[in-house]
């Protein structure tokens, strides 16, 4: 499915954010779309990520990393949309419920939204799925601490804004 990034104006911002994270590059996480409301990320299957050797099912930790990244990107997008600024929001807590194992040899998609932005905390939720979002692999809720935009650091800010390209 081809996605027109013009429908989702924050796709490039979310993509640059995720590409900054070494672990995400290693996992080959790809941002498919992002808006002020949501972020959608694809995690390709790899045999390196197997957690259950007898079935080839990927490790829960990879799903957690996908959820944490998707929720964190949703916070960055939603703050950027509201304040036109960038903040680095560390995760305060994250809870992931696993409904069923991810099928081997197929990508997992992570859909996240920042549903409430308060003055010091950002609240998020996410769903991981393969074939359909109505048939989830996992659900997550996470809260993120908001810290001053001054702490982002100039090189990181430029990287996120695409000013180095």
């Amino acid at each position, binding site marked *: 499915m081809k996605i027109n990034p013009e429908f989702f104006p924050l796709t490039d911002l979310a993509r640059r954010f995720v590409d900054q994270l*070494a*672990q*995400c590059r290693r996992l080959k996480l790809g941002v498919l779309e992002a808006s002020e409301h949501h972020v959608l990320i694809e995690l390709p299957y790899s045999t390196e990520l197997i957690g259950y050797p*007898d079935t080839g099912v990927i490790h829960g*930790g990879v799903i957690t990393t996908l*959820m944490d990244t998707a929720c964190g990107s949703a916070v960055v997008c939603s703050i950027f949309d509201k304040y036109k600024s960038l903040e680095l929001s*560390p995760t305060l807590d994250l809870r992931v419920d*696993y409904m069923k194992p991810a099928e081997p040899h197929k990508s997992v998609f992570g859909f996240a939204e920042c549903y409430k932005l308060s003055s010091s905390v950002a609240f998020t939720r996410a769903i991981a799925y393969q074939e359909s979002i109505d048939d989830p692999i996992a659900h997550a809720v996470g809260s993120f601490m908001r810290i001053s935009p001054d702490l982002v650091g100039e090189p990181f800010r430029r990287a996120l804004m695409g000013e180095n390209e």
Partner: protein
Amino acid sequence: MSQMRHTGEMNVKEIVKKATELNDFSHLLEHVPYAKFIGMEVVRFGDELVFQLPAKDENIGNPTLPAIHGGVIAGFMEMSAIVQLMVFMQTTKVPKIVDFSIDYLRAGYHRDSFAECKITRQGRRVANVNINCWQTNRKALIATARAHFLID
């Protein structure tokens, strides 16, 4: 398929048995590609297992601090709990994760991390595990988590 599952069960049983005999639990981790992917290790002190995640560039999330990706810390803690359950309950299958809830207490900097697990309750079908993770000081935790696993 049932054949495959059967050999899987045998392997887990044999792997746990062999690790116990050799008193070397790294043997168990070697069978899990994800454990290798993040580079985790395990050390045994008497009856206790301490899990170690050596500092590794590819595990970084935030590059400015730099700090380990929160998801990697969570994955490391989840895998630690799985190994703890396999060793101390001599499971015949790899325990399946049901839920995982983590609180991040401090930034996990780009240095070695450690984890220890406590099996809080072990029922017939579900086990509850608490996991603590620290870096320089065991009392200054960087994260604490609790998880439920399905066991057979």
